[in-house]
Structures are given as structure tokens and as C-alpha cells.
């Protein structure tokens, strides 16, 4: 074949590898799809033709995401009523549909060639496929958002992201699981407004939300900037309450020479003994008792290790071996009760103990809540029930959402869910809010009217403190809210003094190490910009790693202070003309490192005033 001839032919790739050329790429794709539809080739093979580059891609490899759609031919869905009837009689099943080419799986590349109608009515002659259900265009998680089609795309994404952070019942065996971290909502409820996907996932059996009575109103500024106000009465009745689990483990390690670790309550002789109050929750076996209260930093597994150096011989022969403290302690700020204790063996046959500590996380100021529409917020205040505003029926909202959260975000779905939730709670049954295919607003209004409520969902409220009627009507409804696992109790941190790093003598970083917040380069520059030289000095030196070192005037090098002979002298020249100089330990460290590199940094001194 000549080169010229090849240029006109379409390149054919299988799994990304060029395997040949073809005259009629369109016919080729059509043939492959045709034989797939009559099950001559596997249903997982996809073929796509790119008109721009004149290339045919055939894919059969693993790792492609496929999705099923109904085949449409000549403007008619292949899933006819006849077939639907057969399906209902269970004469046909899913696999039959795939085999018969009524339903086929598309991958991302083949989808580029497809024109998928969203429902039966919108099929035209050009369409090649039909969605099985319109929610097929959304992901599993996204399609759990009710009235999704009324929301902004970005908010749908937000909402979907937060499904992953919600506490609920995420597994069926919470009692037996020993996850390092786990969350369990105490009183989860079925969502009043559900979607079909939730049914398929059996979310009613493993729910992750609670239905909050929500009023969209400001409350004395406590719910400014996306904060929400909770009703203390509701919180005390168990609203949003959840358990936080953390598992600690320890192994009785065996060392060469017959030595091994031991689970026990360490005695006072133990090296690194923490103090009696740190071992108060331990039982005789060195493990914490079930349901014992454990505070932050106290031991849950008492363990001692053999001494590091065996033959510590004193003048009177071998001393009694001094064991080292090696207990497993509860993390700071994660106190609670011991939930489960397990003793088992690890892969090496050593004894392994696992202790699960449970902490009750009662909603408090700073905890995070979110509806399914990406409307997340932090608790700004928990208001006593008697101070909460109430309706003429005496209903007090569980949560008050700031009205400013709505217009700019355009989460109309949230408002519709409020109406639907309200209607559902009056009706006594769940309402279908499946995206694209839900109970319409007119229906919701009718339902509300039937139950003697206003069809616009508004209520008249009275101030709980003054008893006066609140001006204006307040939109109220029921929304499924989720408790997210970000909690202040685990994040709050402050430091005025605390541990320092051994190497640099600067304050430690990070919450676990009681660290400070870094006053970094850019922060330092702001002080320079303001000319606050002394403040900068205080932050960087006085509050950090200030030291007073002796410096030899002659050599310009750090001198020593011999405290035994009470003599300050230079180790290089022996001179006693050494002077104290304030500097940062970091600088002293740098001088040492320069010396280690073979450089000789000389400090020239001058009188300080």
C-alpha cells in the first residue's frame, strides 16, 4: 500500500495500540457495535470513532467506567412495552436485556459518539440511546440529593462531597469493628424526602441523617456567616448526638534473649513512671476495664518493656532489672469510656490487645452540620429551649438557618426539600424527591393545604424571650441534616508555653505535640513592613529560642562556662575574656553546623549600649 493511500484511511487502535488501517471507519464501528448487540462479542467491548483525527478506538481493557443505557434505533426505544411486561412477569431479566442488545454499556469514549435522550418523550430520530432513568446522568451519591435539578451544579458537588463526611450508621457491625477511628450517629432517622437511589442503597436501613425542623430566620446574630443555631432542648433530646470511637492497641513484644513486654500496671520503680492517677482506669491485667472512664493522656493499656541495656551492674552485683514504661495512653482531647477490649494474637504469635474508647460527642458551638444541598454551617449557638421562637402551634425549630445562605447559592432544592419534608411529616409517609422525577411543587402545596398548613410553607413566629410576635412570616420546613465529623473538641488548640524541639529549641509544631502556630516568613515580613522591629524580635527570639551564649572576644567563637570550677573561658585560646551574647539558638546551631563543615565563623563583638 502506498503512503498516500494510508493517509486517507482511518487508523484503528485496540486498547491504545495501533493495529491497522481501515477504509470505512464508520462501517467498522457500526459492525462492531452491531455484533455486540447480538452478543457475538462481549458486552464490555466499546468502540468509538473520532471524526477529527479519523481514528477508531476499540477498547476491551480493564479500568474503564461503563454505564448502561437503553438502545434507541430509528427514533424508537428498543425497550418496548411488550418487553417491560415480560420483565414485570419476570420472564426476562437484566442479562437478557444486555444479551438482546436492548441495553448496552457505554464507556467514556463511546459516549462521545452517542446522543442520549433523557426520557421517552424527548426521543428524536437523531438519538442513539435513552437513559434508563434520568438520574443515570448523576453519580450514585449526587443522585441522593432530593430535588437536585433545582440546584446549582457547584452546590450539588458540595453536597455530594459532604455525604462522605457525614456520621451515620455506615456499617452493620459497629460493635465488633475495631477501626482506628469511627463515628456513629446515635438516633439516625430515615430521610423524609428520599430518592430512588437511597432505596436501592437501602439508606432507610443505614440512615445517616436526622430530620430537623428548620426555620430560615436570623437569630440575634448567632447564625451570621453560615452559622446555625441549635435548640438546646432538641440537643438534650439527642439531636445530632453521636459517638466517636478510637482504637488503641499494643503488642507484648518478644525480644531476643527471652525478654518480653508485659501488660501490667507499672510500678513506681518503672523508668518513666507516669504517676498513679494515670493508671487509675487499668484493671489487674494492665488493660482498662470495660466502661471505665478514661481521660486524655491516661493509660488504656499498661505496658512495661525490659531495660534497653541488660547488664546494668552496680557495685553490689547485678541490680534488679529496671523495666521501662511503655503504656498506650489516650490521645489528648479524646477522653471517653472504654467500649470494647479485645485480646488476641498478632501474626507473630505475640499477644495483642486492642481497646476501643468511645466518646460522646454532643453538638456544641463549633460543630459542623450540613443539609444535602451543600448548605453546611457551624453551630454558632445552642439556645435554651425556652428562649427559642415558637409558632402558633407551639413548634420550636431544631435549627435556624440564616436567610442570607439561600439567594446567592441558589439552592432551591433545599427550599423544596423543606416543603416536601413538612408535607411528608403531616402525611406520615416518605416523599419521593428523586432528581428529575419527583413530587412536584403543586402537589406539595396541595398536601400542605389539606393538612391545614399554609401552602407557601410560612409560619407566624413568636419571640421566645419577649413573647412578642415576630414581624414577617418565616419559612419553615423539615430537612434531613447530617452531622459532619469535623468537631471542635478534636481541633481546638492553643499554646502559651509548652514543649520545644530538641534540635532547634524552637516551639514544636502541630496539635498532637501541643505546638504553637507558626509565625512564618510572610508574617514576619508584615511586622517589618510596619516597622515593629521590637515586636518582631520578641516573636522570633524571646518567645522562641533565645539563648545567652558566651563568646570569646579574641577568636569570635562560642566559649564555655565550666560550672564545676566556676570558670568561663574560650576552649580555643584559653582566654577568659568571654562575654555573654544574646542570640537565637537557631543561630548558634548554624554556627556549629558551619564549623562541622570546616568553616570558621568569627563573631565580632561590640558593646551593647
Amino acid at each position, binding site marked *: 500500500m502506498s503512503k498516500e493511500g494510508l493517509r486517507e484511511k482511518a487508523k484503528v487502535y485496540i486498547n491504545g495500540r495501533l493495529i491497522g488501517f481501515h477504509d470505512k471507519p464508520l462501517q467498522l464501528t457500526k459492525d462492531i457495535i452491531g455484533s455486540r448487540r447480538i452478543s457475538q462479542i462481549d458486552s464490555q467491548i466499546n468502540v468509538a470513532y473520532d471524526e477529527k483525527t479519523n481514528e477508531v478506538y476499540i477498547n476491551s481493557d480493564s479500568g474503564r467506567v461503563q454505564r448502561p443505557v437503553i438502545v434507541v434505533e430509528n427514533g424508537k426505544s428498543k425497550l418496548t412495552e411488550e418487553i417491560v411486561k415480560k420483565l414485570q412477569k419476570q420472564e426476562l431479566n437484566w442479562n437478557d436485556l444486555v444479551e438482546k442488545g436492548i441495553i448496552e454499556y457505554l464507556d467514556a469514549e463511546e459516549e462521545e459518539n452517542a446522543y442520549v435522550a433523557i426520557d421517552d418523550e424527548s426521543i428524536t430520530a437523531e438519538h442513539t440511546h435513552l437513559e434508563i432513568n434520568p438520574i443515570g446522568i448523576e453519580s450514585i451519591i449526587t443522585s441522593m440529593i432530593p430535588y437536585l435539578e433545582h440546584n446549582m451544579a457547584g452546590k450539588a458537588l458540595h453536597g455530594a462531597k459532604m455525604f462522605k463526611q457525614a456520621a451515620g450508621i455506615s456499617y452493620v457491625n459497629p460493635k465488633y469493628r475495631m477501626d482506628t477511628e469511627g463515628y456513629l450517629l446515635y438516633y439516625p432517622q430515615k430521610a423524609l424526602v428520599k430518592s430512588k437511589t437511597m432505596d436501592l442503597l437501602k439508606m432507610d436501613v443505614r440512615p445517616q441523617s436526622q430530620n430537623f425542623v428548620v426555620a430560615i430566620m436570623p437569630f440575634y446574630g448567632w447564625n451570621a456567616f453560615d452559622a446555625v443555631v441549635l435548640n438546646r432542648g432538641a440537643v438534650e433530646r439527642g439531636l445530632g448526638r453521636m459517638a466517636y470511637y478510637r482504637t488503641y492497641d499494643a503488642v507484648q513484644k518478644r525480644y531476643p534473649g527471652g525478654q518480653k513486654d508485659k501488660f501490667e500496671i507499672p510500678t513506681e520503680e518503672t523508668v518513666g513512671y507516669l504517676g498513679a492517677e494515670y493508671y487509675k482506669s487499668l484493671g489487674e491485667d494492665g488493660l482498662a476495664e470495660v466502661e471505665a472512664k478514661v481521660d486524655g493522656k491516661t493509660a488504656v493499656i499498661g505496658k512495661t518493656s525490659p531495660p534497653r541495656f541488660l547488664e546494668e551492674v552496680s557495685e553490689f552485683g547485678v541490680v534488679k532489672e529496671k523495666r521501662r514504661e511503655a503504656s498506650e495512653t489516650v490521645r489528648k482531647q479524646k477522653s471517653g469510656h472504654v467500649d470494647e477490649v479485645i485480646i488476641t494474637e498478632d501474626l507473630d504469635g505475640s499477644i495483642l490487645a486492642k481497646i476501643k474508647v468511645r466518646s460522646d460527642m454532643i453538638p456544641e458551638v463549633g460543630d459542623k452540620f450540613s443539609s444535602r444541598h451543600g448548605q453546611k454551617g457551624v453551630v454558632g449557638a445552642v439556645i435554651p429551649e425556652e428562649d427559642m421562637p415558637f409558632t402558633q402551634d407551639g413548634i420550636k425549630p431544631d435549627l435556624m438557618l440564616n436567610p442570607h445562605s439561600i439567594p446567592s447559592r441558589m439552592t432551591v432544592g433545599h427550599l423544596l426539600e423543606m416543603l416536601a419534608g413538612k408535607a411528608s411529616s403531616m402525611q406520615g409517609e416518605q416523599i419521593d424527591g428523586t432528581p428529575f422525577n419527583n413530587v412536584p411543587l403543586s402537589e406539595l402545596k396541595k398536601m400542605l393545604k389539606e393538612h391545614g398548613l399554609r401552602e407557601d410553607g410560612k409560619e407566624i413566629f413568636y419571640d421566645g424571650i419577649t413573647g412578642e410576635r415576630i414581624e414577617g412570616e418565616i419559612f419553615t420546613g423539615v430537612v434531613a441534616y447530617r452531622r459532619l465529623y469535623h468537631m471542635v473538641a478534636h481541633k481546638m488548640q492553643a499554646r502559651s508555653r509548652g514543649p520545644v524541639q530538641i534540635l532547634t529549641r524552637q516551639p514544636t509544631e502541630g496539635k498532637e505535640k501541643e505546638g504553637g502556630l507558626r509565625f512564618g516568613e510572610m508574617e*514576619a*515580613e*508584615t511586622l*517589618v*513592613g*510596619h*516597622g*515593629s*522591629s*521590637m515586636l*518582631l*524580635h520578641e516573636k*522570633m*527570639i524571646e518567645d522562641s529560642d*533565645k539563648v545567652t551564649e558566651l563568646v570569646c572576644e579574641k577568636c569570635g567563637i562560642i566559649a564555655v562556662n565550666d560550672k564545676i570550677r566556676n570558670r568561663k573561658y574560650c576552649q580555643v585560646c584559653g582566654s577568659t575574656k568571654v562575654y555573654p551574647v*544574646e*542570640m*537565637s539558638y*537557631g*543561630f548558634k546551631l*548554624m554556627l556549629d553546623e*558551619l564549623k562541622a*563543615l*570546616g*568553616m*570558621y565563623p568569627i563573631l565580632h563583638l561590640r558593646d551593647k*549600649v
Partner: protein
Amino acid sequence: MTAGKKSKIKTKKIVEKAVVETKPVEVPEVETGKEWEQLGVPKSVWKTVEKFSEAKKLSESDVKKLMQLAKQEYDKTVVEVGEAVGIVAAQSLGEPGTQLTLRTKHFAGAAEVSVGSGIQRVEEIVDGRSKAKYPSMTIYLAEDVRKNKNATEEFANSLLDVRLRDIVQMDEDFKEKFIVWQLNDERMAENKMDAGKIIKKIEKLIPKKVEVVKRGTRITFNFSKRAQLKDIRKLMLKLLKKRISGVSNIETVIVTKDKKDEPVIKTRGSNLKAILRKREADPVRTITNDLEEIAKVLGIEAARTMVVKELYGTLKDNNISVDVRHILLLADLITFSGEIKGTVRTGIMRDKASPFAKASFEETVKHLLEAAFYGEREELKGVVENIIVGQPIKVGTGTVELIMK
């Protein structure tokens, strides 16, 4: 208490009120602007005052009062001793810099001249890169050319750098040892060139010893059978590279109008030296965005002005307003050494005296080793150096020291 009797009770004094008095700046009696200037008021300030007074016909005493106020206001804006001007400039330029986008601006209509704008251009200037990525000139025209549309067009086309290879189609026959050049009519038309003139120009370029047959727009080179192929090649390549019209480096020209509706020529590619020599160009207003070239042709002060202009303009195009004094400081820093040096480790950082300042910027180990090799001294004059050592920096409240007496 009866009148006339003095009370015997002496009351202790209390602070009635605390007043911080502000004294007006003492202004000596002066009449002319020159003496004002000696006081430290720049010409632009007193000229404005004078102009205003004249326009409003102010009395002499009023003029003095106004001058006094102007001096006060001016003094307020003068930077104070100990102000960290460098950091403030860096922050003032850096913060809005985060809003700059990676955009390439295309001129509307003819998609020919595109100039990197936004962060790309700012980076280019600040880093002092020797070549602009999109070198471009704005050529203003001499008055007679400006008014004549045809002359403008003609001048613009004459600038275009056209090499022989751009307009000639070559057929080689190495067996018979002859080469045919055919002028490409399309290309000629594109560049608005006259075939006759071109042929004449080509003839001049061809060495005398080569035998040439000319027929219309076709030139045939006949070589002797003994001629080396290598030599023929060499000659041809050399010839094809020859420029037949235009100015080197000018790749594209378009005639557009500037903001004041005056016709200007915008080019892609830049050759300031050659353009300034052209009679048709206005040598005063014609500019290029290639800073290196400006420094070479017009001197470093011109380059400094251009740095300010370009930076200010680029930021302004992106709706960012920065006080020009920050930019002036930066421009001074870039150009004070006599050549353009960017704020990078190969630029002004290299000239820094302080080894600590250099080490804390980039390539720490290298700079420390170098300092050790040459026995450098750290004078601890700068900001970073003193932070490293752990001493108060000599800025703001750190500029003063106590003296014991």
C-alpha cells in the same frame, strides 16, 4: 465665702486636660518658586499652587496660606526615616500580583501582534529576562507620513523583514548542475512587492562569477560541471538568507490607531536602532517593549523609565492600581547597576554584599561555602541577617538605640 477673703485651703493641682499641641510648620517668607524648591517642595507641587492661584486670582496672603498647606500636605506624604520601603513595595506589588492571570492579550481584529500581558509580562520585567517573549514595537510616524494613508501603508510594508527564501521557490537539478528560482507571485502580492524591482535587487546580490539566465520572474543558475555540490549548496543557502527588504527581526506589521486615534504601526519583533534611523518614524515617541534593547540603544535611564511604564501599564490593564513609588523603587533596584538585573539569584541577589541575605534567598550551601572561601564579612545591616542572628532589625522602632551618659 465672702468676697475679698482668700481661701486658706490650698487645693492640689490635678490634670485638667491633656493636650497634644500641633504646631503649624513654620514657613519662612518666600516669594518665588525657586526658594520653595529649596525647602524641599518639588517643582510639580509649587507649580500647581501657582497655577491655581493665578487662575483663581488669589490674594498674596492667600497664596502664602495655600503654599503653607501644600507644604504640610506634601510633608505628610514623604516617607519617614526607618520605613521599610522595600518590604512595603514588595507587599504592595505582590498582593495584587496574585490576581494577575496567565492571559495572553490579543489585539482585536488582526490576530497578528499579541503581547504577553498579566503575570507573564510582569515576571519578565521583574526577573529582568534578557529577551521579551513577545517583542513588539509601537512606531509613531513623522508628521507627513502620518497624514498620508498610502505612505503609512508603504512604510509599514517596507519594514517587514523579507528574506529571499520567503519569496523564492527553488528547484534543484544536481545532475545537470543547474538551479531554478521562481518568484512566488502569491508571496509577492502578500508583501506588496514589485517583481521587476525584486529581480534587480536579486541580481545585485548574486556574485559576478555565477552564470545567470533571467527570464521574466524566473532565474536560472548554471554551474560548471566541475563545481562541487557542497559549494553550490553553500552559496544557495547564503543567498536565500539575504534580506531583500525590510528591517531585520520585524516579523509582522499592522497599522492601527492608538488611544488618541493617531495612526501607529505595531510590529511583532523589534529593532529599535534601525527604526529610529528611519526618516518616516518619529524618533521621540517610537517605543519597543524590549527593555534590553532600550538599555542598549537609548541608555539605562530610558530603560528604567520603560520598566516603570511597562509595569504600571500592565498592572493598570488588569485593573490593579499600585502607587507608582513602589514601582519606581523596584525600577531603581533593577537598573541602578547600569544594566538591567532582575530580582533573581542571577540578578541583583548576586550583587548583594551580605552572605546571609544571599544564603537565605536561594542555594544556601553554595553561598555559605563561597563566603567561607573568600572570607567574607557579614555586616548585619539588612533585615534578614538580623533576624537570623537574633537581633532587633534596624527598621522602624529598631532604628534608634539608647546611649548611656
